[in-house]
C-alpha cells in the first residue's frame, strides 16, 4: 500500500466537494426583492432613455432584457446590484429575474471587473495553434493594469488563430510578444494592434478579393 501513500491528498473545495460549486448560495434570511418602485429608484436619464428605446423595438418588452443589461453594464462597468435594480425598474421586472438572465451569459459580469476586456480564445483551433501559452502571457502582461483577461470559448475567428478580442476588437494571429503590445496600446488609448485587426483583413478565397482592397492579406497568403 505504500505507493498509494505517495499520492497527493485529494483537493477539496470549501463545501467539501472535489469540484467547485456552480452558484453562490442565496441569502434565505432576506425577503425576495420586488419590482423596484420608480419613485424610490433613481435611474440615470440617458440609461432610462436607451433602455426604453430598446423595449420599443420588440413586440414584447421583456425581449429587451439582454440589450438593457448590455447598456447597464456599459454604464456601471458591471452588472452591479444597483445596475440590475435600475434595469428592473425601467423594464418593470424583478431584480431576481434579471439576475437569472445575467448569470446565464458569459459577457455579463456579476462581480466588479477591470475596465478593459481581453478575451483570449482557448478553444480547439486556437489551442492547436498555441493559445494556452498565449493566454498565460496575456495574463502576465496585464498584471497591474486595469485589464481583465479571460480564456474564452470559440470567438468565431479561427482563421486568425491564435486570436483575442480586445474590448471587442478582434486581433490575430498573435505571437507571444503581442500581449505586451496589446497592453501598451490599451494604456495609450490607441487602436489595438492595427496591423492585425480582423476588420481590415482580406477574404481567404481568391475570387473574393479585389485589386483595390487596401487591407491585410489573409493568413498564409501574405506573399501572394
Amino acid at each position: 500500500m505504500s505507493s498509494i501513500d505517495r499520492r497527493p491528498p485529494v483537493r477539496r473545495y470549501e463545501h467539501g466537494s472535489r469540484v467547485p460549486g456552480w452558484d453562490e448560495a442565496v441569502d434565505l434570511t432576506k425577503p425576495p426583492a420586488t419590482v423596484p418602485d420608480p419613485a424610490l429608484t433613481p435611474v440615470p436619464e440617458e440609461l432610462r432613455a436607451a433602455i426604453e428605446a430598446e423595449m420599443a423595438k420588440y413586440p414584447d418588452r421583456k425581449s429587451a432584457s439582454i440589450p438593457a443589461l448590455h447598456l447597464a453594464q456599459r454604464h456601471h462597468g458591471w452588472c452591479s446590484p444597483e445596475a440590475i435594480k435600475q434595469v428592473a425598474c425601467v423594464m418593470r421586472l424583478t431584480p431576481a429575474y434579471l439576475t437569472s438572465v445575467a448569470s446565464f451569459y458569459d459577457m455579463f459580469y456579476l462581480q466588479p471587473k477591470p475596465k478593459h476586456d481581453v478575451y483570449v480564445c482557448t478553444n480547439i483551433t486556437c489551442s492547436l495553434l498555441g493559445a494556452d501559452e498565449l493566454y498565460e502571457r496575456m495574463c502576465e502582461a496585464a498584471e497591474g493594469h486595469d485589464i481583465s483577461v479571460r480564456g474564452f470559448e470559440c470567438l468565431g475567428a479561427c482563421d486568425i488563430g491564435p486570436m483575442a478580442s480586445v474590448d471587442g476588437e478582434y486581433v490575430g494571429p498573435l505571437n507571444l510578444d503581442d500581449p505586451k503590445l496589446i497592453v501598451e496600446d490599451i494604456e495609450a488609448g490607441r487602436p489595438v494592434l492595427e496591423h492585425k485587426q480582423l476588420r481590415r483583413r482580406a477574404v481567404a478565397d481568391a475570387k473574393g478579393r479585389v485589386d483595390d482592397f487596401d487591407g491585410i492579406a489573409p493568413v498564409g497568403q501574405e506573399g501572394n
Partner: protein
Amino acid sequence: MPHLLFDRIDEPGLNTIPVYERRGGYSALRKALQMPPEAIVEELSQSGIRGRGGAGFKMGQKASFLPKGEMAKYLTCNADESEPGTFKDRELMQKSPHTLIEGIIITTYATGIHHAFIYIRGEYQLQADILDAAVAEAEAAGYLGENILGSGHSLKLVVHRGAGAYICGEETGLLDSLEGKRGNPRLKPPFPAIEGLYAGPTLVNNVETLGTVPTIINMGGADYAKIGTEGSTGTKLISVSGDVQRPGNYEIELGISSREIIYGLCGGPKPGRTVKMWFPGGSSSPVLLEQDLDLSYDFDTLAKAGSMLGSGAIIVVDDSHSAFEVMQKVVKFYAHESCGKCVPCREGTNWTNKFLARIEAGESTPMDLDILASVQSQIIGNCLCVLGDAMAMPVGSIVAKFRDELEAEIEAARERANALPLTDTEDLLALSAH
C-alpha cells in the same frame, strides 16, 4: 465553379447600398415582389437548398410548414455563429450585409411575415454595428418598413445582440433568449414553424441560407439545383482552420473532394506534417481520418461516412497533436456551454470533463475508456437539444478511432503520477489461484 456569395466580396463599400446596387443588389427583391408568394416558396423548394447552419434541413420545406394567412408570424435569422471552427457568416455579414437583408425581405414576403430579427452573437460587435447601419440604410431607401417598393408588403427588422452563450445557436434556445430569458432549449414538438417566438409561427434560418435566397430568385430554383450534387445543391461557404497553411473562408461547390479543400485550397498541414484527423463540420461532428480525405464534401457522403457536414467548418489536426489533447478541448467547451436543463447533458458533459482530468492525473485505467464510451452513448438522443450529442459524437469517435493512443496516454499519465503499475487480469487470476 460560380462564386455566388463571395464573388469579389472584398470590394470596398459593398456594405453600403450604392455599391451593392451597382453590383445588381436588390434586383432579386424587385423580381420577387412581382411574383406571387407561393411561387417564391416553390422556387426555394426547387432549388433544393439545405440549411447552412448545421442541421441541413431543406429550406423550402421548412418555409412551407408555416401556416398561411394573416397572423403574428416571425422570422429569426440565426447569426449566433458559435460552433467552434465556424466563422463564415461573420465574413458575409461584415462585408455584404445587404445580401442577408435582401434575403430576409424576400423570405418574409414569401411567407407573409412582418417581423424579423437577426440574432447575432454578442462577441461580433463589429458585424452587429455594420448590420445596424445597413438596416438603417435599407429603411431609408424604402427596402424596409411599410409598403416596400409599393408592393404592400411591410417588414420591421431588428438586430438583436446576444451575450455569449453557445446554446443560443440552438433554434429554440435562441427563441427563449430572444424573448429575454435564459437561453434554454424547448421541448419539440411543437416545432418553431408552428409555435415559436412569442408562441407564434416562426421561421428560423441561418445567415448563409437566407443570404443565398436572392441568388436563387435571380437564377431560378431549377438552375440553382444544377450546381452541386443531387442531394446537396448549390455552393457552400466553408471555414477551414487549424493545421493548414492557408486557413480562412472559401466558397466551394458542394461535392468537391475534401482533399481538394484541405490540400488544394488551404495548402494542407505544414511541410513534414500529415493530417491526423479532421472535423468536417465543426467540433460537433465525429472526426474523420486521413484515409477519408477523398470523400466528396457534401451532406449525404459525410453522413454515410459516419460524420456530418454541419456548419461547413473544417478543423484540421496534424500529427504533432495528441488525440487526448483534442478530446479534452472539445469536452471542456461543451461542459462549459451546457445550459443545465437536461440531466444527461449537464451531468454527462461535466462528468466527461472530470473524467479526462482523472486520466491526466494518472488516476485512470485503460478499462475506463469503455465507461467513457458508454456514457457518450447514453447522452445521445436523451436531451431536448443536441448539445450533449454534439460532445458525445466526436468524443465517441475519438475513443473508437484512437483507442491505442489513448491507452498509451493513460499508461504514461499513471507513470508520471507514480501510480500503482497495472496488472494484467491473467496475472491477478493466477495470483488468486494460489
